[in-house]
């Protein structure tokens, strides 16, 4: 039983005792503490855990550790060394060669990558360097897997084609979906490896409103640690004496907990604590707006979804915790299950919450509907359905509670709202908030899915009782079952228009499935409702939305925040209307587009920063340019003959050759050209910021240290989207220093001031501004101090290139810091930024302080026989006000398109009568690199006055129009209107064959 495992990991020989049940990833992560290898799914689906075993990439999560006996393993941590070691030998040879050559001639020596590696300045493999340089790194969680897979490819094939890169990375998933940049980075690294030249830089245009720092492309501050395996995410942390937690979940969708018996579990050796609802110290519920979500369901209480917690276990090992959880016995009195929001509103159905099944009836009223429809020449009505979706961030949730000797509690977690976590933990514990410190960690993606509390309260309770650190890590299964999703909706739209295309009236009725608990359901469905007439100037609007409780997993924030759903409905409707009116789809949108001076359907006058028309025009001309078609031909079906086919994803040139030859064969005989292409078009808008009258506040603090470095701090969340780069650039801009002179600290409730929730595309705007004004305040303080000291007017103090000039004196910032302190001033400034006031829905006035606009066009290819759909190209134009960091923006735009593509084509969170079918990543497919279309990003910059340098939000708008652009393209190609997501190839095929049979 005590086998030994001897293996070499990153050049170091290890001999370890074999353990039952151990996988290679466990051995690497927990025994060797090489935490660069990540676990995203633990089911061989995502590829994050890829390491090399004897030179071949393998998934380490299902690789038994004992199989690695005698083998050589390379992980992300070893890649830099691997490269250096390998090239050290080459470099020596090279040097010798060069020496000989030098003796013969005076040819200058080219500095090779190998030599650079040796110099010690560059401990990164060119792949690692290229990933940072090209912006392929966002949240960073999948990156070790991407780089290791790419490394294996380049070892075998030093000069891969784009298709070969894609084929190699086929199943290595990235949810930030920087696939195009990943591809570019790999090709750039391959080139550098071949030529010895430094990694070539990406070609990304600056902002048209470029300043000294903001508006230029910059690397992420956390880029290097995310490519060399040093980045620490919550599960990478280990504390002395730490326990492992497991939550016992109801696993039934609706019923009353009749009996709960934890006695057998308590007897299990190694179990340290078991808690039930009786042990909740103070408030029993948590929630973001409505406190309706029980920390645990107690005996006699109602279970509302499968993920409801009924008991908590803390044990010496995870294995024991799992065993104990299985030994807990529970009996339920099962109740009829409310499976959808329409059913939830019917008479006589069970009411899930005390106040009923209706969370909120949301209303939008503008103008006179009767008049609007009476004035219309054409009226159309249609109902659309969208399913539930999961965020599928690659890093599952993890929380660690650490009790401190002074009675305080630290919570380590990845959270989009650290201060809210603190509040919610404190409420349940019955503590003053100051007793809790939330220490936010790097996050492997969020997308709205890490706004609600998951394990934070549970670990606090367990750590408090056991007086030991407690870790609760969700596996993918638990993550899929428990956290809030994107709302499933039913949306009926009735639209009336004049013959000339002017929309006269828009009526919509929405049902949103907010699941068992409110989460942000009310806000999400409000956004869905207010945006349900599209980005158009419509005189008469009426919208009613019913956000309903059901027995499905809760639904809450998810990138797009309800607008993803309503945009699908309204943009499909726009194309249906265009066809009916015989007006080109682009033209119909031009006729109705919101512009400066328009009044939105909530009664807000748009006074500035409406770049919609420019987005429409730019996408329209880009479509013509890339396709060589005229505007009127874009939306017509084009049959793809086999000879003409430019196969964007063909792996084998040979196959293409075969296809050509086959023309003389059967297909030629049957003459059925069944591949058809067309373009589709869609527009959208999305608010920046909370809006609706909520005070939108962020705090930031900037400090100058003695060494001349700055630090900017805010608890706003960095989940991969690049806020830290924005904060750094903003401060660098205001202090006139290089960005590298600014460090960023985020997400710590003790050390960073409250930045508010990271949601609603708000952080660039609010925390960008808070950082900017904090820096300005500090600069003013420096100016005042130096003006006094040198007895000059403040205007004579100048800040240039990292140097402060005062009346002939030039000082570095290190010297400035000393001066300030000598004068009794602490060089630090805190700024509370409050965004322009907004008004609640229904009161008219400004419901939001800014809107971003986006237009996308998609070219699809539909197989008429099978119904299969391929998205070939997407053109995305986004009016973001100002591009603070064009590199980060590129990542957001491409990732947004891919998430939109997943929404349209691959994803559907399946449930069966309240039970979750999509309970593994294998049953919830997110887009991989093979599905990545050619993405063209067009940045439109209509600055908004209050935004930092004119910037407004981008995180969501770039994802919203993708789905309707794709489904409209499908209609244009084969005449099948997709009104239910995701696109179902079988339905498309069926509709075509039934039509042809007629």
């Amino acid at each position, binding site marked *: 039983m005590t*086998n030994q495992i001897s293996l070499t990991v990153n050049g170091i020989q290890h001999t370890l005792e*074999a353990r*039952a*049940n151990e*996988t290679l990833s466990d051995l690497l992560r927990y025994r060797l503490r090489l935490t660069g290898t990540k676990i995203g799914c*633990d089911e*061989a689906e995502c*590829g994050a855990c890829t390491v090399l075993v004897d030179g*071949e*990439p*393998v*998934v380490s999560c*299902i*690789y*038994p550790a*004992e*199989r690695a006996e005698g083998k050589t393993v390379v992980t992300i941590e070893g890649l830099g060394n691997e490269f250096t070691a390998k090239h050290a030998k080459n470099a020596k040879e090279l040097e010798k060669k060069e020496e000989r050559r030098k003796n013969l001639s005076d040819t200058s020596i080219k500095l090779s990558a190998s030599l650079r590696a040796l110099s010690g300045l560059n401990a990164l493999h060119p792949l690692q360097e290229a990933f940072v340089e090209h912006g392929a790194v966002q949240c960073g969680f999948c990156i070790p*897997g991407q780089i290791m*897979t790419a490394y*294996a490819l380049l070892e075998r094939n030093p000069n891969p084609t784009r298709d*070969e890169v894609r*084929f*190699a*990375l*086929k*199943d*290595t998933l990235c949810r930030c979906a920087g696939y195009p940049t990943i591809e570019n980075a790999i090709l750039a690294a391959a080139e550098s490896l071949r030529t010895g030249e430094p990694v070539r830089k990406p070609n990304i245009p600056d902002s048209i409103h470029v300043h000294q720092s903001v508006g230029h492309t910059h690397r992420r501050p956390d880029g290097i640690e995310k490519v060399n395996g040093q980045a620490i995410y919550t599960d990478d942390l280990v504390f002395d004496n730490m326990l492992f937690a497991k939550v016992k979940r109801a696993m039934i969708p609706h019923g009353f907990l009749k009996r709960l018996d934890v006695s057998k579990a308590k007897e299990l050796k190694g179990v340290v604590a078991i808690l039930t609802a009786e042990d909740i110290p103070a408030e029993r519920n948590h929630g973001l707006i409505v406190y309706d979500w029980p920390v645990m369901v107690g005996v006699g209480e109602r279970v509302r979804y499968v993920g409801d917690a009924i008991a908590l276990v803390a044990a010496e090992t995870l*294995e024991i915790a*799992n*065993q104990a959880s299985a030994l807990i016995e529970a009996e339920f009195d099962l109740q009829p299950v409310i499976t959808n929001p329409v059913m939830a509103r019917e008479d006589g159905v069970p009411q899930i919450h005390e106040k009923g099944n209706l969370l909120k009836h949301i209303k939008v009223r503008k103008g006179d509907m009767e008049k609007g429809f009476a004035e219309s020449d054409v009226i159309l009505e249609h109902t659309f359905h969208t399913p539930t979706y999961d965020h599928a961030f690659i890093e599952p949730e993890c929380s660690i509670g650490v009790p401190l000797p002074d009675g305080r509690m630290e919570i380590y977690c990845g959270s989009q709202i650290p201060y809210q976590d603190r509040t919610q933990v404190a409420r349940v514990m019955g503590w003053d908030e100051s007793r809790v410190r939330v220490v936010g960690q790097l996050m492997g993606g969020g997308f709205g899915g890490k706004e609600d509390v998951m394990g934070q309260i549970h670990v606090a309770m367990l750590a408090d009782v056991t007086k030991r650190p407690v870790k609760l890590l969700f596996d993918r*299964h638990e993550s899929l079952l428990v956290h809030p999703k994107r709302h499933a909706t039913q949306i009926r739209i009735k639209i009336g228009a004049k013959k000339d295309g002017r929309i006269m009236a828009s009526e919509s009725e929405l049902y949103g499935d907010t699941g068992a608990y409110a989460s942000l359901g009310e806000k999400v469905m409000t956004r869905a409702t207010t945006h349900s007439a599209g980005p158009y100037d419509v005189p008469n609007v009426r919208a009613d939305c019913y956000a309903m409780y059901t027995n499905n997993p809760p639904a809450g924030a998810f990138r797009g925040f309800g607008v993803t759903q309503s945009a699908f409905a309204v943009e499909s409707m726009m194309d249906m209307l265009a066809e009916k009116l015989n007006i080109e789809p682009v033209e119909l949108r031009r006729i109705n587009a919101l512009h400066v001076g328009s009044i939105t359907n909530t009664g807000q006058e748009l006074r500035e920063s409406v770049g919609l028309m420019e987005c429409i025009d730019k996408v329209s001309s880009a479509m013509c340019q890339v396709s060589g078609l005229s505007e009127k031909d874009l939306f017509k079906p084009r049959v793809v003959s086999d000879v003409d086919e430019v196969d964007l994803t063909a792996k*084998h*040139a*040979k196959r293409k050759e*075969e296809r050509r*030859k*086959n023309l003389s*064969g*059967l*297909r030629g*005989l*049957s003459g059925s050209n*069944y591949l058809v292409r067309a373009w589709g078009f869609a527009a959208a808008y999305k608010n920046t910021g909370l809006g609706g009258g909520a005070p939108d506040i962020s705090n930031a603090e900037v400090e100058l240290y003695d060494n001349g470095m700055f630090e900017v701090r805010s608890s706003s969340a960095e989940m991969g989207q690049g806020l830290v780069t924005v904060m750094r650039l903003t401060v660098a801009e205001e202090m006139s220093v290089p960005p590298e002179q600014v460090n960023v600290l985020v997400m710590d409730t003790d050390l960073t001031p409250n930045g508010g929730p990271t949601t609603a595309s708000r952080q660039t705007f609010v925390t960008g501004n808070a950082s900017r004004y904090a820096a300005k305040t500090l600069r003013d303080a420096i100016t005042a101090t130096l003006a006094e000291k040198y007895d000059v007017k403040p205007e004579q103090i100048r800040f240039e290139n990292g140097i402060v000039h005062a009346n002939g004196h030039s000082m570095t910032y290190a010297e400035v810091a000393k001066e300030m302190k000598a004068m009794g001033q602490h060089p630090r400034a805190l700024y509370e930024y409050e965004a322009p006031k907004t008004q609640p829905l229904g009161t008219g006035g400004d419901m939001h302080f800014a809107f971003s606009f986006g237009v996308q066009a998609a070219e699809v290819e539909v197989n008429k*026989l*099978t119904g*299969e759909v391929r998205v070939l190209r997407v053109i995305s134009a986004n009016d973001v006000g100002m591009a603070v960091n064009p590199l980060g923006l590129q990542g957001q735009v491409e990732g947004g398109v891919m998430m939109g593509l997943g929404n349209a*084509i*691959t994803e559907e969170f*399946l449930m069966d009568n309240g039970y979750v*079918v999509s309970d593994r990543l*294998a*049953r919830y*497919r997110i887009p991989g690199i093979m*599905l990545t279309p050619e993405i063209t990003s067009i940045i439109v910059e209509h600055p908004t006055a209050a935004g930092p340098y004119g910037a407004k939000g981008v995180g969501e708008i770039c994802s919203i129009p993708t789905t309707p652009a794709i489904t409209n393209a499908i209609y244009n190609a084969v005449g099948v209107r997709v009104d239910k997501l*995701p696109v*179902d*190839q*079988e339905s498309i*095929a*069926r509709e075509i064959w039934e039509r042809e049979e007629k």
Partner: protein
Amino acid sequence: MTLWQQYIKPKTLAEAMDAFATAPRPLLPIAGGTDLLLDLEQGRHSPVQTLVDVTAVAEMTLIEIRDDQLFIGAAVSVNRVALDPLTVRHAEALTEACDLIAGPQVRNVATLGGNVAHALPAADGTIALLALDSYAEIVGIDDPMAILGNGDSAKLHRFHRLLPLKDLFLGPGKSSIKHGEELIVGFQISLSKPHQASCFKRIMRPQGVALPILNCSVWLERENGLIKDIRIAVGPGGGTPFRATQAEDVLRGRSLTKSTFESALDALLAQAQFRTSARRAGADYRRHIVSGLFRDVIESAWMRAEGKTTETRRH
């Protein structure tokens, strides 16, 4: 849960059989484990005492020519199957099937034996092997008493049996391999002769489990513009991997034309039993799309058999 206690890594078949005979039970052989470990972890298979890892068994990791047969070890990774010059030359359909399975980090672990042993009616490797008329080589312990074993391995009588692949399958997920008593050592395929060729293709759907909704493989021999012999496999065309023998009969001895193809398609549709799989594909959808898939595959095989020379592959 402790999913396994003991992990044994035999280096030879004899050692593997010893482990089968003597190691604590319940016992399972493990090759790649890409499915098996998930079955254990996710509770579809109850925990075991012993896993016998066969990936280091020399006989099972070979690809070699034995007389007029190509032997592919059951523990060869599907990536190696896809890339090996011998398989590329003699079993093109199989390389195409293996090339499509998952990504490289899974293909490097998953094995051909595992793909077949799960007895799924539409496993890509299985369907290709079926069209290639492969035989499974099986080794086992004939005396069940030996399993309880007193550790005296010399007493064990071992035998190999050679089973036509189609006889390996009893029903969906059920094979005739005796669990814990037998092992698939490898597969035999007749060496490819001039004017013989094969092809494999599949149709997926982008949502849900990454299994094909339909796959098809054809092997054929072409002689004087006629189909001298042909084998057609379609998955899932029934409870077990399906050979469209009636369509084969239609085509044998005839040329490939639009009309012979359509007769063959009719025969295939008459013989196959397409099922509806919830959330994946309706039976009528499968019946509808099989025509295009079958046509593409047979056409490629037909063209390849005509000009079969050395083709350069991507790798």
